[in-house]
């Protein structure tokens, strides 16, 4: 008998309150996993914002009823396997090139919805050129940008968005702005390009923020339908594993440290 199980038997408090069947019926459902999110376990670390971002993306696809019309592009980064979780056609791009891949798809399938989903290393380091030019051309795609201030997949190296003084495996004494540069606010830069139509910064660390982020993604697809140009949704996110915090701590840290530097809200809103 393992320790945990023994503990459980001794501590009534952690016993599950069994669900009430009078409430838990189909017609009472007010929230459930979207269809487009496949019923499999994701490989993300506990508490990782990627999971939430995937889920709301899937929700929007379901709600807009565009599952058959959408093609996604996964990056190289922790979300490289996004195609295992989203039940839509997808292409897995080389590191940093997701927006070029999305451009290729959209140019030959202009009637479809195309999005790329990219991390901060992917989009704002190695992929800077592709990101800027995709937005500058105003490709009719949606770019979802997960900014967790770190290279998650490769084990916690400094990202372009790593905060000043923040430690990572390649800034072991903290990011030194003098030699490594200041964090790159790429979203603000992209908003300056005439090709971008809607540029916003959101987060998914609290329920209300999740709702707003979802709304932003929805707008992105809606504007795409209208051929408005590039829509760009940054999601400031966490990386509990590489920040070396619990998920709850990481969201608190995000709130207290990331958000002052990366303030939430719309950066460029359609004039019409």
């Amino acid at each position, binding site marked *: 008998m393992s320790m*945990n199980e023994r503990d459980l038997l001794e501590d009534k408090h952690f016993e599950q*309150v069994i669900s009430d069947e009078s409430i*838990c019926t189909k017609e009472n459902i007010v*929230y459930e996993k979207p269809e487009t999110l496949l019923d499999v376990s994701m490989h993300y670390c*506990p508490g990782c914002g990627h999971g939430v971002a995937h889920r709301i993306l899937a929700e929007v696809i379901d709600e807009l009823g565009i599952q058959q019309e959408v093609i996604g592009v996964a990056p190289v980064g922790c979300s490289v396997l996004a195609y295992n979780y989203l039940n839509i056609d997808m292409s897995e791009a080389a590191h940093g090139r997701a927006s070029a891949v999305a451009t290729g798809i959209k140019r030959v399938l202009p009637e479809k919805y195309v999005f790329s989903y990219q991390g901060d290393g992917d989009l704002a380091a190695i992929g800077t050129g592709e990101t800027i030019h995709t937005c500058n051309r105003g490709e009719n795609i949606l770019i979802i940008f997960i900014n967790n201030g770190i290279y998650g997949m490769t084990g916690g190296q400094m990202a372009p968005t790593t905060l000043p003084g923040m430690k990572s495996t390649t800034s072991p004494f903290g990011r030194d702005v003098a030699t490594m540069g200041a964090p790159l606010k790429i979203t603000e830069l992209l908003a300056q390009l005439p090709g971008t139509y809607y540029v916003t910064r959101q987060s998914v660390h609290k329920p209300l923020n999740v*709702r707003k982020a979802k709304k932003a993604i929805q707008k992105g697809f809606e504007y795409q339908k209208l051929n408005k140009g590039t829509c760009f949704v940054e999601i400031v996110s966490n990386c509990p594993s590489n920040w070396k915090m619990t998920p709850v701590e990481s969201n608190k840290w995000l709130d207290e440290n990331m958000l002052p530097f990366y303030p939430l809200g719309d950066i460029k809103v359609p004039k019409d």
Partner: protein
Amino acid sequence: MAKVKGDIIIDIEKCKGCELCIEACPQGSLETSRKVNNKGYLYIVKVEDTCTGCTNCALVCPEGGITVYRKTEKGKEQIAKISNVTKDMELKVN
């Protein structure tokens, strides 16, 4: 303000015990169990019957593992969504 009656079902095999739902729940309905699921995570359980079905927990859950209900009239039968493997583990407890 009249209390709304709600409930949730957690897919404990998907749960990774991140505790974000606990943090998000305004009713304090949730807690980490001391029981691990098949992947070795201490999953989350509802410990208080105070749920209002506000969906906060589900919104922040990275695993898409929480279904939320809000009251209508219905019978009373206990249901739980637990994977086979976890049942195995419970067998061991016995």
